């Protein structure tokens, strides 16, 4: 344990550095290529207070580059970080909560609820707008949260919501909602392409407003989950043993369920359905750093961000000028890697 604790901090520091490098690199890549040094200068100068004096003003900054970087690429890359982190932390939380390494952010039907909301918005037409946002993210967000309320209340038996009931209620509600999504898709031929594309997940054309929609919910949820990291460890002993360690199991379960669902909701609302991240990232990090949530959660957040930034780079650059759907790529890239890991460490799958 002491040896493990020693290597924890450097690992987190390394991941944070890697995330920063990934962001800078991602900002430079695209139809218009921007050199790394220029990227750094543009970023430094954009810091509202004191940013102008951070670096010597020698480098040449092309104004259009500044616009592309700040207005187009930066929100998208940051959203990739946020969505990647949110899905991964959500996945790790559900895995701990359900004591099941195969749980993922979509397990209790949150995503199916978001999908139904998003699909409904698309089918109603693109005219609706609120707060500068299209109806899709707002409807998706609402759909996701309504689903949690529904599933939790279905599973509840006299003040308690047994894990198994939550799981079953989630599966049942999920399949009903997915059927409704299919139904809407079936009858809305004009919007079919859009709906299908949205469901595959994408960060294409997401501006600052998307980032600002998701950010408060995601950060608040991650903070809540972080607070209960030790409780989450105890949950892995089982609900009764956790209770005997003095943990108010039902209350903590409720907080964690809400926080993890909120993370999934804000990710799905802003970027559609992106699979596999929330399942694979916690696994990989657990293999490297062990299952202690106090270490696992921050590491998972950083790794999820890094992973999605790079997958998004791939999505933008693999087949220019086409953009590949992000959800397809996460599975295409993550799947084989996951299989490789499982084959390599047969004796310890998780």
């Amino acid at each position, binding site marked *: *344990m002491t040896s493990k604790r020693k290597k924890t901090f450097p690992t987190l520091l390394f991941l944070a550095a890697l995330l920063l490098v990934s962001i800078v690199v991602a900002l430079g890549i695209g139809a218009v290529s921007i050199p790394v040094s220029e990227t750094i200068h543009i970023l430094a100068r954009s810091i509202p207070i004191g940013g102008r004096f951070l670096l010597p003003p020698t480098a040449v900054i092309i104004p259009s580059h500044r616009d592309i970087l700040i207005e187009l690429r930066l929100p998208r890359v940051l959203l990739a970080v946020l969505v990647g982190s949110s899905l991964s932390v959500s996945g790790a939380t559900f895995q*701990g909560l359900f*004591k*099941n*390494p195969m749980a993922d952010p979509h397990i209790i039907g949150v995503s199916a609820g978001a999908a139904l909301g998003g699909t409904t918005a698309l089918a109603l037409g693109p005219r609706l707008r609120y707060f500068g946002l299209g109806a899709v993210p707002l409807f998706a967000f609402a759909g996701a949260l309504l689903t949690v309320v529904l599933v939790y209340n279905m599973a509840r038996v006299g003040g308690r919501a047994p894990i198994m009931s939550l799981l079953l209620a989630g599966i049942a509600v999920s399949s009903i909602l997915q059927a409704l999504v299919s139904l809407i898709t079936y009858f809305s031929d004009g919007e079919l392409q859009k709906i299908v594309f949205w469901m595959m997940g994408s960060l294409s054309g997401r501006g600052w407003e998307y980032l600002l929609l998701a950010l408060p919910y995601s950060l608040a949820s991650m903070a809540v989950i972080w*607070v209960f990291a*030790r409780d989450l*460890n*105890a949950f*892995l*002993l*089982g609900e*009764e*043993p956790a*209770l*005997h*360690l*003095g*943990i*108010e199991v039902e209350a903590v379960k409720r907080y964690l369920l809400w926080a993890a669902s909120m993370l999934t909701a804000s990710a799905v609302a802003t970027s559609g359905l992106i699979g596999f991240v929330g399942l694979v990232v916690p696994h990989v990090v*657990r293999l490297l750093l*062990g*299952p*202690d949530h106090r270490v696992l959660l921050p590491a998972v957040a950083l790794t999820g961000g890094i992973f999605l930034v790079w997958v998004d780079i791939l999505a933008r650059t693999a087949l220019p000028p086409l953009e590949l759907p992000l959800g397809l790529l996460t599975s295409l890239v993550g799947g084989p890697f996951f299989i490789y890991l499982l084959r390599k460490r047969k004796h*310890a799958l*998780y």
Partner: protein
Amino acid sequence: MGKVHLQIEGICCSYGAEPVLNGVEFIVERGGLLGILGPNGSGKTTLLKAISRTLKPHLGRVLLDDQDIYRINSIEVARQMAVVPQESHFDFPFTAREIVMMGRTPHLGRFQSESRHDWRVVEQALAFTNSSHLAERRITELSGGEKQRIAIARALAQEPEVLLLDEPTAFLDINHQTEILTIIRRLNKDYNLTVIMVLHDLNLASEYCDQIILLKEGQIYALGSPEEIITSTNINAVYGSKVLIRPHPLHRRPQVILLAKDQAQTKIAGGARVHVVGGGGMATSLLGELVQAGYKVTAGVLNIGDSDWEQAKILGVDTVEAAPFSPVTAENHRSNLDYIEKAQWVILAPIPFGEGNIYNLKALQTAARRGQRVVVIERIPIQERDYTDGKGLLEYRHLLKLGVIRVTGEGEVLRLLQREGQT
């Protein structure tokens, strides 16, 4: 010692409309070691759940140091009371030491990290459960016995005053069963830890517990020391099984020997009485076989301390007893005749005859003359077991002339009785 630590006041629990516990009441003193026994469905585990603040009883209270555990907060309870589950199942690769450290949870603030004291407590808990060498191993890779030791270490890391265990040895082999229970008893004796455990195994409970509660259908059937509780009458009443009780050769606590129930044989025996004349270990197996086959068996005259006498005691066989190494008295002889008279069958084992027990042959002659069915086992020639200078030989030959059934071995006796019993 002596002070009341836990007080269970008339608790009633039910799952739905089905009552599981009905007015259970008892007291555990500080430093007590209490075992809860009872058949499946008698409410043992439910009782433990009620005491461990897992399942709130709808009536009654559980007082821990005079405080109702359902009225103080869960962390306060967790600092005083730890629970070891029947079996722990892990899907996540924590090290054993990390698992034990989780036991410190009730002593740590939400953002407080483990202090040197916490680590020391964890190391001590590991050492106490003979698990220090497992500390760095992954919990997922440990065997059942090792996992159970880690579960106990985790409970100890809570630094509790009360330890509750739910069948801690249910999934372990015999070697690990005694290892775990020895650890628990050491905690109880050396650290005055109050222990309550649900056990399935009557013999282990008898050996390790100071007090035993026998539960039947959600109520306490009996409560007391192992000697008071582990009796064939109690076991028969609660479990419905026929058992033999004998003291353990080392610690003298009562041990239970289960008798298989064979309804078909019991039916054939039909409650018939069989009197066995034995001694010197010559009737030991025969007594067992007859009891097992469902006959009402009596024996006599047997010297106290003789191995046949011991067997008769264990089997609960009514016996005419003579003083150790002493001849049969006239009074012994009379009671022997009384027993013989009531029996449908009288059996003479191939016993040696000395001056002391020659009376037994006289008793058999009386039976044969009355026309009772006397079976003589002639496995060993009479010449080889007569130590009376021919006196026994004469009486024996006289007996044979009175029309007894002669068989060559013990095996034939049961077959004979059963054949005759069916016709």
